């Protein structure tokens, strides 16, 4: 039997408690990620405009990793003034 360590259990309990019916999957998140990241860059509270994307990013390590890299990429390009 696979052992589950205590940190995993804690994360799992939170993940179970925070489940919602309107969660979106990775594809829908990806579809809206360009809009979400531009709202963030413009300082326009993307978590309010696109709360389901925000929520997916909190739940999905893969999408979150890509989002953070995309943000860094765009910030670097903006800093260079294109």
């Amino acid at each position, binding site marked *: 039997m696979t052992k589950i*360590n205590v940190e995993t259990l804690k994360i*799992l309990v939170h993940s179970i*408690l925070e489940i919602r019916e309107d969660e979106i999957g990775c594809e829908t998140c990806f579809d809206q990620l360009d809009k979400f990241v531009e709202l963030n860059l413009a300082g326009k509270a993307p978590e309010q405009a696109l709360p389901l994307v925000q929520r997916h990013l909190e739940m999905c390590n893969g999408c979150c990793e890509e989002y953070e*890299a*995309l943000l860094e990429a765009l910030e670097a390009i903006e800093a260079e003034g294109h």
Partner: protein
Amino acid sequence: MITKSGQIPFSTRSNQDWLAALQEPASPEALTELREILLRGLRAGLSSRIDGDLDALTEDFAQDAILKVLASLDTFRGESRFTTWAQKIAIHVAFSELRRRRWKDVPLQTLIETAEGEEYTPALLTDPVAGPERQATRMDVMNIVEDLVQEELTERQREALLAILQANVPLGEVARQLNTNPNALYKLLHDARKRLQQRLEEKSGLKTQEVFALFEND
């Protein structure tokens, strides 16, 4: 704005300009500009995440990304700047490939077992603010969840859940190893979490809100 030479300066290319310039046959100038933008973004987005030859890797990724962008032009909905949308695709192409290389050939079960770490450590569960009764209830909930994972989930659900939560394997890589796609895997995990939530209420006799209160300060 189009200059006398007929070239559209990079900074003034609108989304419509990009789409027009990249329709087949794509304008070589537009392709060169796009490649430059994607390369700069990839270098910035990946520099802290890869050890190898950054320039060589980003060249490959930019090339693959351009092909994907060209093949996906009709899915661009204009909800962001075209270059943001293209950069999103480039980052996705890069991460998909990096994950494939990093996790290649290591079975999920091995990764899960490697991450088992310490034996179950009750001390870690203690919350200095919580009274003994609350701590005991937290312990009960964790024990129940552990049992439910073993008893109530399918082998596939359990493996996917633990690979992600315990071994920190990215969801996309877990999907690849399980021969599915990320979206379907997310759905599988959603169903697993829902099953656990229902059974936790039944087995603990606590409502989800009550369990939430027990763990809200973690």
